[in-house]
């Protein structure tokens, strides 16, 4: 099993969700996060005061999938989240040692 964490532009969330749904991903966790990479922040001006805002709002999607689904899922995310402009985000993939569905106590691939 692998965990896929994707940081994407907030307005792309619906497209990414639909694309993942199409390749058979049934669940995910979404959070509103802030951060910056190469895109950096922006400047806000309020009358005489100027503020540099380093952290931009992003969406983080987390999903855990069986090993065979990883490349399908990442391809779906890349296709749906890409605008070609700086700030499109990143995908991180990591190993997951165990998954348990609390209701049925199923384990491993059955639980994700």
């Amino acid at each position, binding site marked *: 099993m692998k965990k896929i964490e994707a940081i994407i532009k907030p307005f792309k969330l619906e497209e990414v969700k639909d694309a993942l749904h199409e390749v058979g991903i049934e669940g995910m966790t979404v959070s509103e996060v802030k951060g910056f990479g190469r895109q950096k922040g922006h400047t*806000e*001006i*309020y*009358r*005489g*005061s100027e*503020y540099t*805002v380093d952290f931009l709002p992003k969406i983080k999607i987390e999903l855990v999938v069986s090993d065979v689904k990883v490349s399908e899922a990442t391809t779906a995310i890349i296709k749906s989240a890409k605008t070609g402009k700086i700030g499109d985000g990143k995908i991180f993939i990591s190993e997951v040692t165990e998954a348990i569905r609390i209701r049925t106590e199923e384990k491993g691939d059955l639980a994700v």
Partner: protein
Amino acid sequence: MLALTAITGTAQQAAAVTLKEPTVEERLADLEAYVNNGARVTTDKQAGKVTGPGPGHNAWMMTSAALVLFMTLPGLALFYGGLVRRKNMLSVIAQCFGIAGLVTILWVLFGYSAVFAGGSPYLGSLSKFAFLKDVTSAPNTDYAAWVSQNVYAMYQMMFAIITPALIIGAVAERMKFSAILAFVVLWMVVVYFPLAHMIWGVDGLMNGVWNGDAKIRAIDFAGGTVVHMSSGWSALILCIILGKRKGHEKINMAPHSMTLCAIGTGMLWVGWYGFNAGSAGAADGVAASAFMTTTIAAAVASLVWPVIEWILRGKPSVLGFCSGAVAGLVMITPAAGFVSAKSAFIIGIIAGVVPYLACAYLKPLLKYDDALDTFGVHAVGGTIGAILTGIFASSDVNPNLLTANAYAAKNGLDKLVANGGLVAEQFKAVGITLVLSIVGTVVIAFIVKAVIGLRPSEEAETQGLDLAEHGEEAYHS
């Protein structure tokens, strides 16, 4: 001439023994006076048939009083509240409510009397209307022939409430609640009551329109000097004595909700119709004119300010629209019932430009921490407005500037308006307002600082005044 003997009502029956019945002509003249908002013809002793307040004028003044209160609660509370960080939102609301209650108490005790009872040219009698004694539904003909004096007193009280509330914009996020209340009590007594009496009191030093003996023949329709200059200049002095917010120019102090700020701005604008058009003291032609000029100046300035931002900085901001609207309203305030539509248009343009420059360039240059730009908008706008009033005031718009107004004829205001020279008088009023506001604030601020201290602890300021001072949070996530 028909002598009327028909008596209605027991009160008049009792009076009929000694009082002469008014003639039909006199009774008709009373009605005409009511419609024209002139002085009634029958004196009280003649037992005129129209003895009480005029219903239309009273209705408008009660509406106006409510509108002016609406400017503070919640208009100003939201306008200012939206501009502070979220940890200080409730402190601004608490300060607005606290001031509303506190000033009401002062006003009832002796404030109304100090401003609107006769006394000296500098301050009214402290006792004549103390506890609003004798302030009944009958009009006080010194001010408004057809408006109940109790309505008039409440209307003027709303001005007394919003004026110190404007000051909290400059000292937001870093002044103890107790220090603000103490400051406001002293400031009302030392600065506001004398200044309001000088400008609007029946024997006031600078009441050019309604005091035949006024030494300074200045005019201020709805409070450019009394409200905006006094609060704005005092705000500058207080914020300098108080010191900057912790982390000023180092950490992000951006407004926490421009949405609430914009809602508050809309409420201020709506409420300002009561402030300016209500300052006619009647639902008459002068009020109608003030209603129009208020709209024009506010709308023009609300567009000019963000357009200048657009040109100089690339984007028109919502805070620019809001600031422009308020600056336009501030600047038209002293002029509202005295100037034409065209003059209001010009005032609107100036209001969109000069306060913007003060906020965007003067403040960073001089490095004072006027947190929400009370000085940049109200002091700069009010001062320029008071001077422009002297330039644009027209007797075509307001007949009270004509010789027909016995007071203006007696003190020579009519000639000043006709021949020029009013501007010099306006400068004198501006000068007195400046000196009283600045000196008064310096003295009061140091007294409060010495006795109870002005600032909360660094820990409280960092935590936010909402939790530290009021034990509440504005938002729960």
